[in-house]
């Protein structure tokens, strides 16, 4: 999408404003805990990791998730926050080549790691094959889950290549083979509320060289 003009109101600004109205008061915490709790605004913890090939040095509240570090501190807003509880997969990134939910991982636990986000897979001029396939097969409607879907799909294809078994395999001792049902099972941690699943599966099949 190289010719798309920069929007005046960014999607991120609209979403951030919308989210603010949805904030509810935090419920009272467990009172029963003992032990000294650090101040509400504790000293930042230093952490360094690579993001899309570039070394980034951060000093963060230890509570910061990898997702929030990417979005709020490094301004890499391609990675999306959906449920923030590991249920939707919108936050999927690759850490040392392996797909994880960045919302369920503390940034300070990633010292020395190599993180790849959707911004690191391709560029508007030179899309990653999966990005191009999602465009070709219309593997989205609203697009919010798409960065997570694409990062997850990169991980899935690598997992099949490495022989990681899945629930739908007949013979669990055998090497898995690419198929539509394999992709659907392995992508089940990525929810698409628009329901673009058929086209997502076809896009992934296109890159894998298989039939959807």
């Amino acid at each position, binding site marked *: 999408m190289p010719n798309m003009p920069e929007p005046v109101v960014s999607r991120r600004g609209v979403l951030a404003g919308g989210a603010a109205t949805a904030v509810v008061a935090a419920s009272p915490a467990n009172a029963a*805990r003992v032990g000294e*709790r*650090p101040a509400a605004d504790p000293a930042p913890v230093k952490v360094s990791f690579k993001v899309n090939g570039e070394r980034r040095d951060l000093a963060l*509240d*230890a509570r910061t998730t990898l997702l929030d570090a990417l979005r709020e501190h490094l301004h890499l807003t391609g990675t999306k926050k959906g449920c923030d509880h590991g249920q939707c997969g919108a936050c999927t990134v690759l850490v040392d080549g392996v*797909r994880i939910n960045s919302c369920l991982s503390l940034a300070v636990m990633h010292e020395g790691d190599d993180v790849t986000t959707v911004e690191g897979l391709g560029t508007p001029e030179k899309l990653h094959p999966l990005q191009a396939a999602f465009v070709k097969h219309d593997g989205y409607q609203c697009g919010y889950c798409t960065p997570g879907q694409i990062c997850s799909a990169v991980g899935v294809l690598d997992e099949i290549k490495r022989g990681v*078994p899945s629930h739908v395999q007949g013979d669990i001792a055998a090497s898995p083979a690419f198929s539509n049902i394999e992709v659907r099972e392995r992508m*089940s941690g990525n929810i698409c509320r628009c329901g673009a699943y058929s086209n997502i599966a076809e896009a992934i099949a296109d890159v894998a060289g298989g039939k959807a």
Partner: protein
Amino acid sequence: MKAFTYERAHDPVAAARAVAARPGARFIAGGTNLLDLMKIEVETPVHLVDVQDLKLDRIEPTDAGGLRIGALVTNTDLAADARVRRDYGVLTRAIVAGASGQLRNKATTAGNLLQRTRCAYFYDTNMPCNKRKPGSGCAAIGGVSRQLAVIGSSDKCIATHPSDMAVAMRVLDATVETVNAAGETRAIPIADFHRLPGDTPHIETALAPGELITAVTLPKPIGGRHVYEKVRDRASYAFALVSVAAVIQPDGTGRVALGGVAHKPWRDAAAEAELPRGARAVTAKLLAGAKPTHDNAFKLPLAERTLAAAMAEVRTTA
């Protein structure tokens, strides 16, 4: 999320010491369950001890002919191990039936055993829950209880243990190895590792405060056909309503454990002795004394049918 301090430990005893020294401190490994619960302040640790550098991420043969699985081996790596797939197929089957690919890449062997219940009332901090806040009551009893326990529950708690992996570990007679702050080690049979809720549903395992799981060991392979049959509300990425882990020998004898029905994987020697007589005979004994709710009474016939399906699978693919 409540504020906490953070440190990265470099050997198991030092990690145990760091947690034992500070009330309210917790170990963190994959973090997929702990962070989820910290965000809603069901878990409120004051200090986190990161154990990822403890080098407990290997699977090695034991002198007894079994396998020692390091506490930090991820669910994906454990399921994918060639020895596990060949000799302990029920374990691979159970792991890949749980969670999502992303979660299995991060979740660890020890963390999987230690994950908390997904009872909706445990998650809802506006509701009473004896597990979350001892003595506050149980909103699940008399509440929406379709997913919850049918056996081994108490008048304080009807939560289920959510793990698939643990059900396979139970049928394989795994052992949980630990170390404490004094450097003392112990080996806990998986049967004794998870507790029933009784009057103290907040105490879920046999672990003492600060005691660290270092490995889970499997005895030497027992052969037989390995199956894990899971029934859930959607085809993938959902917790079990009922699951069956079974290892069936050519003569029809074998082992069976149920998931999704109790506060721990549910297995009974007298019940599995009935295997040659069929699923109904097994579940009649295994679930004798069950106290289902109106919402979850369906789990009793479902358990029988799921076991029957598992046994049929063994017969038809033998």
